[in-house]
């Protein structure tokens, strides 16, 4: 059972690893969030568009559509481009972090992470998300060569 129901924010977790998805759901629900899950990039884009979550946690190393490509498509779609995206990945090189930000992510969290760290960033994401509901400058059309995981 959710620990509390004060927080009705909905978070979409896009991650190809099942155990990671399941634990993310349990942890975030324990902190009062509603959690939506997607097992790959295509599914993530569909759920995002259909459910309009308040925040997206996005893995990068995924088969077929990798996280950077998903991020670019999210930011290219007027319906969902304002949803704050936090990249959560095993990739943590400066180059990867720079790519995340250039494509419009609000944070880049490297796995493994402590949940407290992620929760703080989620909180900040909501604040930012409500502040500029209009649109982040998605100047990502030229695109980053989507680095395969």
């Amino acid at each position, binding site marked *: 059972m959710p620990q509390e129901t004060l927080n009705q924010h909905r978070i979409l977790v896009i991650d190809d*690893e099942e*155990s*990671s998805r399941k*634990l*993310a759901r*349990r*942890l975030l629900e*324990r902190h009062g969030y509603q959690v939506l899950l997607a097992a790959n990039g295509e599914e993530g884009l569909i759920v995002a568009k259909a459910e309009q979550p308040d925040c997206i946690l996005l893995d990068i*190393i995924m088969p077929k559509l990798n996280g950077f490509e998903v991020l670019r498509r999210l930011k290219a779609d007027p319906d969902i481009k304002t949803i704050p995206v936090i990249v959560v990945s*095993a*990739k*943590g*090189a400066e180059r990867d972090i720079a790519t995340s930000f250039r494509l419009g992510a609000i944070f880049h969290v*490297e*796995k*493994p*992470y*402590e*949940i*407290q760290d992620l929760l703080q960033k989620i909180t900040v994401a909501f604040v930012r998300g409500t502040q500029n509901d209009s649109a982040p400058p998605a100047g990502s059309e030229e695109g980053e060569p989507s680095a395969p*995981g």
Partner: protein
Amino acid sequence: MGALPVEDRASHMSDALSTQEGELRAKLGKLEMALSAIVDAIVWVREDGKVQWFNAPFRRLVGRQHEEILEAELIDLLPLEQDGRRLHPNVHPVALALNGKPNSVGIYEFRKGDQQIVLEVLAARVRFSKQEMSTVVAIRDITERKRAEERQQRLAAAASAAAAAAKKRAAELDKAYQELKTTQGMLIQAEKMAAIGQLASGIAHEVKNPLGVIMQGINYLELGVETSEEQTEVLSLIKEAVKRADKIARDVLNFSRPASLELKACAISQVLEDSLTLVQKQLAVKNIEVAKEIAPVLPVVMIDENQMKQVFINLIVNAFQAMPSGGRLSIRCYPKPLTERSHGIGRRVTDFFQPRETALVCEVEDTGIGIPQEKLARVFDPFFTTKPPGEGTGLGLTITRAIVDAHRGLIAIESEEGKGTRVTITLPIAK
């Protein structure tokens, strides 16, 4: 015996004499034959220097008729030369013998027809009887022997020259071989590193994902209301292990990532200072004296400040860890003209420095436990560590060297067990 008539006696004596004479002649004839049979020319002269007797080889040597030789002056018959110049009659060996020198031996040249030959001439005084003194001269043609000797000398000289050349060439080859071996070693090392890097970065990414799951799991369990103190401790131990595994994975990725440098003109002293401060804050340093010998004026270097900081942090941490019961950390920094060729200093394309170039040298030296010689060569190898299990990933110096290499610099390590370790970094100066 009965008395014989005088005539008879005379006739008898005459017969005896002629028999004796015949015997003597026969003996003399044999002697002459014997003397002529030997190869050496033999001649004897009277006190007046004229030829009294000679053998066949002598006749052949001087190339004259029998009558021309007998009673001729030997010195005229046998004009000798030395070093291409005619010998003065006074110092002719025959003249020396005639003047009383009991023995004289010498080597001379002699013109026989149109050829120059070499003679060994031996002249000896002989007393045939109370009244009769004579000089016997033995002459041997040693042209062949001399030539053989000269040939041998030339051969020996040529052989020794060849040997010297071969030795020199061997030394050059050996040097070239050593250089090649070093270069090959470096190439193999570079290739090995690249392969390990690729493999390792793949593994590291794969490892970080499950580490993420474990960390999420720990975080989840930490939320449990009924977690006992013991369980909390176990969880925190697991968390520490995850962090350590993550550190290894990050280190692997750090060193396997092609280092792209952001070069800026920097004052190295500030980078050193910052690195030292950072390490001192992080490590509880006990009884360690820090001595800084930074030259007052240092040339500017083009470096990636963050990466170079990483280098010095690694070295300073290593130094501190090598001195668990205290000691002295020396940090030196000075410009140095490179005078000698050595590893990395030379005119080959693989060399980073040219002799006579001035470089910036940074040394980090401790008075710690040191590294055994057999391990020293391996300290830059990935995953090689001299630290206790859990304290080092074996990647610190690997990364350090990769960064220094990327700056086209050199890194060298010297160590003595029980005395300490010194790491020297040589960096190019901004032009």
